[in-house]
């Protein structure tokens, strides 16, 4: 009997251990997860936690003091700037380690290592796009330059110094949830981070869909639906600016008409994991002639997916060489958007297309040779090894051509063949040292320094805005942009002929720019940089409407203050609706409407055109316009059942403004002819069905409908770590660009007075730990459109009341 009891209890004991210690039966190993000494409870940071510390670390040359203020912003005081980068790395890791690793794992196509086989398609896509190849090229350039190499080395050592202090208890909670441990940081990971950022901002393309559209719609209709310019364009560089003649001779190859422009090709597979085309930003700088203080004011708000932990980490770096403040990327040394004692700098995305596809014909299965300039040319092969949690490693062979990696071939998209594969030509693969730009901007003192710094930047193309204490304002659209003949790269190009390759890059001095323009301000909002007189062909994804509001508002302002600039960043005016609503009103057949539909029409027509949180008009207007858009375009876009891209919203608005008989209005799937009256009225009737459903759910008010949400990086898998139901206004095409989960990820307004008058906020918090009160404590301030006054600390401020904690880093022998 006692043997039996022992055996039973041992069995129960062992089973319990198995259940609580592994992920085989329960998704989380509850034993270690709930352990009070090593599990999640150790991540519950006391609300009165004392961050002060005295540390001895190897890898710094002198003492470094870090003053943490009441918002947990570190103010790093170091003599040597590499010491500052070391400590920046240490702090990034201390507060954001999981995020840094996750983002660079994603960049490198390594998510399968801890997520398992469901991430394989994502990982393959990243690898085949050449993300690691690109990062290696970037790293070689960064390490060739002594100053960036030393900065990166110090930064990496700082991260690793923190990682080496970790034990199970101190691991960020996401590691405990997912069940893995951090590995050592490396300079390559920082390079990978820059490539992920490049993908986010310059990774969107429409070449394959355009190729399909050309076939399905024909050349004439293609131009109507995907025009190069919007009529209502308010370009970054003022209309009428004179441009020099292009340096290069840009003529299409002789056979372009037949083999390229009249191409009759269709591509059936869909491209996955495209970046959000809404990734963009606003920036503007007004000169002292227009401000109350007489000094320039620079404003910037980058629009990205809103995430927790935030993409940004606020920081001050004070060294012998410079004193800079702003937001940094956990993953890179230096301040990325911010200011120093002399200048301020910020960015918006250029949206320029720097990515093209070439059709490749392989000799055989092995993908080792492809047809090029009349002969079989060897392709180099890169074998990507993808480790998969709970399964065997996967090998993926990617062929590299003169253009770049063959991203799509039959091993990846099964409707392709040996004779039909697609190589990617992308500026992101080029060797360049973009980190150097930031390290130089941090110390820049004037326009010349800024101009020199930005010359190191090749991709993703940015509108780089500048203001200085001495009164200069400037904006450069900077990157190495491909030199293309008109129409080049809109569609897939033949990969067998070198004459279809890019002809080089547009010289920097020819990039659109402005220094102290007569208007007294410079601004950009992801619109096309120039009007049609710019001598180069510059395809891209451009926004139209935010720029209109910003420029109109700035034109009307005088005696500008910081408060005016904050108000403009939070401006909810809907200029698109201002232009579109009259069309809806004009063509709707009022006598055909039910009393319910008339009610919604009434809401729309009496709406004040503001995307404010409690407005119902915006929800109703959007529903109606979207329904009209679908009525007019879906039949045309879906006629061939191959992927096409939706025309931009300005296309329909401008077409209907000019021409009530726009050729796409009629539904091609019916025998009857539908006119604009019919379509507008039917669109409202369709919208009413959804609107009345929303009204019943209490979601007609804009903020309730929009439900602004800051997701955790693990998205819907980690909703307890997200913040949803944030009631704020804004929207797509609005200066306050807050959409459901996308929008102003950092708002800053910097007045170049002495001392500098700086205000900023971001929708997150400094700590990446969901168990810290500093995890999401800025969100409410951000949602209300309010800002924090920045504490730009000077050496004499060490006893300031704003300093709550001090960390001292002493060099260990």
């Amino acid at each position, binding site marked *: 009997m006692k043997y039996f009891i022992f055996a039973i209890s041992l069995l129960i004991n062992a089973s*319990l251990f198995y259940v609580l210690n592994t992920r085989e039966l329960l998704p989380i190993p*509850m034993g270690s997860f709930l352990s009070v000494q090593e599990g999640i409870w150790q991540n519950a940071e006391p609300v009165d936690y004392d961050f002060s510390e005295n540390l001895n670390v190897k890898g710094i040359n002198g003492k470094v003091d870090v003053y943490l203020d009441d918002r947990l912003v570190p103010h790093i005081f170091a003599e040597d700037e590499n010491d500052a980068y070391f400590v920046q790395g240490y702090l990034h890791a201390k507060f954001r380690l999981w995020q840094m690793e996750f983002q660079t794992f994603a960049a490198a196509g390594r998510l399968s290592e801890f997520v398992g086989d469901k991430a394989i398609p994502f990982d393959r896509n990243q690898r085949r796009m050449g993300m690691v190849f690109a990062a290696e090229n970037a790293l070689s350039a960064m390490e060739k330059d002594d100053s960036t190499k030393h900065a990166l080395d110090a930064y990496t050592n700082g991260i690793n110094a923190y990682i080496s202090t970790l034990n199970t208890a101190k691991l960020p909670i996401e590691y405990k949830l997912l069940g893995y441990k951090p590995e050592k940081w490396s300079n390559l990971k920082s390079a990978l981070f820059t490539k992920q950022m490049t993908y986010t901002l310059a990774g969107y393309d429409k070449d394959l869909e355009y190729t399909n559209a050309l076939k399905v719609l024909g050349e004439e209709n293609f131009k109507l639906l995907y025009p190069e310019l919007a009529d209502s364009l308010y370009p970054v560089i003022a209309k009428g600016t004179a441009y020099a003649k292009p340096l290069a001779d840009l003529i299409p190859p002789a056979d372009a008409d037949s083999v390229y422009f009249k191409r009759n090709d269709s591509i059936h597979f869909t491209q996955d994991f495209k970046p959000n085309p809404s990734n963009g930003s606003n920036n503007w700088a007004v000169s002292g002639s227009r401000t109350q203080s007489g000094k320039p004011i620079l404003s910037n708000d980058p629009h990205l997916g809103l995430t927790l932990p935030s993409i940004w980490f606020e920081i001050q770096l004070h060294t012998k060489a410079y004193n800079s403040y702003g937001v940094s990327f956990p993953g890179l040394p230096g301040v990325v958007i911010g200011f120093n004692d002399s200048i301020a700098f910020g960015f918006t995305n250029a949206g320029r297309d720097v990515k093209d596809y070439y059709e490749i014909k392989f000799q055989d299965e092995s993908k080792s040779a492809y047809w090029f300039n009349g002969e079989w040319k060897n392709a180099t092969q890169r074998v990507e090894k993808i480790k998969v949690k709970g399964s065997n490693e996967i090998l993926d062979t990617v062929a590299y051509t003169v253009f770049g990696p063959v991203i799509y071939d039959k091993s990846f998209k099964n409707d392709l063949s040996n004779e039909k594969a697609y190589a990617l030509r992308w500026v992101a693969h080029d060797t360049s040292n973009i980190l150097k730009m930031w390290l130089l901007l941090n110390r820049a003192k004037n326009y010349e320094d800024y101009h020199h710094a930005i010359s190191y930047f090749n991709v993703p193309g940015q509108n780089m805005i500048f203001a200085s204490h001495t009164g200069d304002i400037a904006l450069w659209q900077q990157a190495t942009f491909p030199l293309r003949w008109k129409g080049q790269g809109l569609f897939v190009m033949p990969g067998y002929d070198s004459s279809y390759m890019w002809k080089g890059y547009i010289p920097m001095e020819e990039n659109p720019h402005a220094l102290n323009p007569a208007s007294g301000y410079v601004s950009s909002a992801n619109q096309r940089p120039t009007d049609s007189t710019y001598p180069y062909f510059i395809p891209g994804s451009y926004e139209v409407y935010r720029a209109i509001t910003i420029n109109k508002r700035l034109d009307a302002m005088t005696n500008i203050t910081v408060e005016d600039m904050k108000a403009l960043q939070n401006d909810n005016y809907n200029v698109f609706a201002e232009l579109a609503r009259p069309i809806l009103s004009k063509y709707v057949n009022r006598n055909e409407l039910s009393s319910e539909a008339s009610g919604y029409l009434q809401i729309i027509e009496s709406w004040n055109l503001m995307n404010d949180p409690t407005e119902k008009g915006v929800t109703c207007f959007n529903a109606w316009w979207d329904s009209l858009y679908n009525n007019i375009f879906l039949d045309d876009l879906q006629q061939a059942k191959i992927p096409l891209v939706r025309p931009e919203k300005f296309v329909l608005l401008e077409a209907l403004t000019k021409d009530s008989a726009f050729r796409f209005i009629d539904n091609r799937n019916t025998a009857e002819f539908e006119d604009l009256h019919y379509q507008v009225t039917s669109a409202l009737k369709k919208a009413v069905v959804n609107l009345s459903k929303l009204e019943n759910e209490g979601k007609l008010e804009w903020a309730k409908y929009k439900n602004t949400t800051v997701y955790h990086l693990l998205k819907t898998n980690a909703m307890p770590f997200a913040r949803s139901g944030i009631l704020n206004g804004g929207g797509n095409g609005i200066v306050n660009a807050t959409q459901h989960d996308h929008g102003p990820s950092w708002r800053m307004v910097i007045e170049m007075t002495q001392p500098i008058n700086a205000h900023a906020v971001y929708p997150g918090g400094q700590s990446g730990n969901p168990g810290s009160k500093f995890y999401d404590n800025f969100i409410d301030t951000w949602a209300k459109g309010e800002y924090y006054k920045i504490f730009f600390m000077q050496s004499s401020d060490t006893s300031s009341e704003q300093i709550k904690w001090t960390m001292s880093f002493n060099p260990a022998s």
Partner: protein
Amino acid sequence: MKFLASIILSALLSYATGLFLPWWSIMIVGLIIGYSIPQKRILSFVSVFIGVALFWGLFAYFISNANDHILAKRVAVFIVKKEDPIILMLITAVVGGLSAGISAVTGRSFALLLKK
């Protein structure tokens, strides 16, 4: 007396071993206490359960209280779909108590096996 000693010792030893060893050190503590303190199996179980459950439950409570339950509210949603820090503490106490308590029964049964 043995019962009380078993409660106190299991809590103290769990804390001490937990400083160096992973979470399953509470199971070792359970085995040792079960083995070395002679009492009925059921009493071994109950006493060690109480000792470790109290340790884990109260420790979790003190940590969480100092944290204004920020973390416990979030993690509770993962486990019980409700922002309820108390439930998470109770689950923590039960997981700890059960792991150590069952181990105590195994330890006691082993001791009885050796005793001729």
